[in-house]
């Protein structure tokens, strides 16, 4: 997809560098002239939004570290120090805390978009799989970051999540003590989480680079899910999509900053304003909202190891999606049955999110079990079968034809 045009640069300094390191032609080819399908809708802006949120998280994180102390007796107070004493500390902390939530919002929408329009299908399997790895890595990053303020929910979240590994037979206990660096979540745990929470965002940035690289090898999918056939089907990335992405980023930031300035703790849990106490578990432990669907699946299974396997399985199964979906048609625009089941899947995920926020008993437990069953059935039964029984709608021959037929 990437243009093979050779660029002639006029500026002699640029020419001199270009002969030694072809960075200017790469920028021209990949970020400016890059041929992009002309029919991308606003759902396609969430990749750029997610990348922007990663940058926001790294920038705010780096300056927060200048004031934070990773020690069990100082961590909680140093966060309060950031909130009360450090110039604009409150702003940076709220940007970072809410930034995690909005990073997940962007990534979840980005993933559902890929799911709806079949962006994981050939030839974009590797692109999708790198995305899944990014998702798992950012979950680990977010989890460890939430532990750092060392409040009650930080502490008990760390206890519950690290204890997941104790479910594995024979080696479980050894693994957990290795993760903790002791016999309970304590100072060694906090310090290693801090170290990894600083490292992982840069790993994420490297993975995002690979993700974009893979995207630029095969090119964008598009809402009609048909291949680009000629130049007529595309637009140069700049200014058409740089401006469209920027506009979406600005709207997204209005909402994000609305939370930061007007309701910064809306997505948090007030119990985290109490310092960690290893001798007393809060009455109702819940993870941050972005982990609730996975948490619901964990609790839906009445067996400890089973619950852990189902929860990790719900992530791992995404890696196999390109081969589980047997339909040759990418976009659900042309899949009458696929579309229905896609929205049922979205409802199942949202239901799991609500179930995860409720105590694991009674009706919610039953609801969580049904939704968990549907989650796995969607990947293991519905998508493999649909491709064989579904009659797709007639598709336009080209992207241009699809676009012009509407006007």
């Amino acid at each position, binding site marked *: 997809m990437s243009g093979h045009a050779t660029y002639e640069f006029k500026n002699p300094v640029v020419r001199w560098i270009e002969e030694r390191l072809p960075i200017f032609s790469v920028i021209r080819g990949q970020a400016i002239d890059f041929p992009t399908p002309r029919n991308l809708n606003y759902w396609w802006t969430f990749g750029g939004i997610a990348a922007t949120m990663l940058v926001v998280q790294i920038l705010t994180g780096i300056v927060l570290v200048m004031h934070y102390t990773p020690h069990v007796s100082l961590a909680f107070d140093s966060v309060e120090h950031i909130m009360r004493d450090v110039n604009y500390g409150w702003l940076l902390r709220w940007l970072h805390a809410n930034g995690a939530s909005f990073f997940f919002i962007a990534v979840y929408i980005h993933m559902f978009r890929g799911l709806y329009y079949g962006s994981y299908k050939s030839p974009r399997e590797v692109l999708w799989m790198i995305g899944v790895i990014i998702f798992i890595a950012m979950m680990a990053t977010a989890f460890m970051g939430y532990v750092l303020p060392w409040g009650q929910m930080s502490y*008990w979240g760390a*206890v*519950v999540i*690290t*204890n*997941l590994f*104790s479910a594995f037979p024979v080696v479980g206990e050894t693994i957990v*003590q*290795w*993760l*903790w*660096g*002791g*016999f*309970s979540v*304590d100072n*060694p745990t906090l310090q*290693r989480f801090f170290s990894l929470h600083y490292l992982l965002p840069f790993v994420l940035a490297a993975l995002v680079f690979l993700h974009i690289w893979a995207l630029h090898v095969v090119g964008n999918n598009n809402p009609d899910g048909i291949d680009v056939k000629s130049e007529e089907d595309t637009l140069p990335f700049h200014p058409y999509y740089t401006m469209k992405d920027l506009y979406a980023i600005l709207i997204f930031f209005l909402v994000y900053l609305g939370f930061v300035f007007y309701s910064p703790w809306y997505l948090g849990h007030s119990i985290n304003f109490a310092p960690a106490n*290893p*001798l*007393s*578990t*809060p*009455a*109702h*432990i819940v993870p941050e909202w972005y982990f609730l669907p996975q948490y619901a699946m964990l*609790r839906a299974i*009445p*067996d*400890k*190891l089973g*619950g852990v396997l189902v929860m990790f399985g719900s992530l791992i199964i995404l890696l196999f999606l390109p081969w589980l979906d047997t339909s040759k048609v990418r976009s659900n625009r042309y899949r009458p049955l696929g579309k229905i089941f896609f929205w049922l899947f979205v409802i199942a995920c949202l239901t799991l999110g609500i179930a995860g926020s409720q*105590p*694991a*008993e009674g009706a919610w437990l039953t609801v969580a079990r049904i939704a968990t069953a549907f989650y796995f059935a969607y990947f293991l039964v519905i998508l493999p079968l649909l491709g064989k029984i579904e009659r797709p709608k007639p598709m336009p021959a080209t992207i241009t034809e699809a676009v012009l037929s509407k006007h």
Partner: protein
Amino acid sequence: MSTTTAQDVTRRDFLYIATGTVGAVGTALALWPFIDQMNPDASVLALASTEFDLAPLQPGQGVTIKWRGKPVFIRHRTEEEIKKAKETPLAELKDPIARNANLPPDAPATDENRVTDGTGKVNPKYLVQIGICTHLGCVPLGEAGDYHGWFCPCHGSHYDEAGRIRKGPAPRNLDIPPYKYISDTKIVIG
């Protein structure tokens, strides 16, 4: 085309494989310190054992103390609690193993085996257990739950008067730490 002699091939192959092996094994060995540094360190392992005086505890009273950074529940059980725990048939237990560090790992979860110390002394009055839910590590609440023993608020595990799991997702009875009586009313944990 000349054929290479067997001797040349052997010598080069040997050097390649030897170099590669030393490199691979060396890297693998060098990895170990980076992994092992995360294990509990000497200062954590050296944490002294904890002594506790049982005398002030009234029947029906329980306390939580800290040992190796973990909460330990010590409860002076009432006659009624002991009676109920003893009468519970083993067949009703979800986990039939005592989980007592002072006993062999296959000891059955009788009430006696839950209150046996490292010297084999049985004192049904005092129940000493690690206060960590065997599900995902929360601290259960005392005098709560369907069996009026302990109840874990995190994911709803119910333990009975002897700290044995009866209902909910936890797989094991509450663990009994290694401890022994050093006098009639004093124990040392660890």
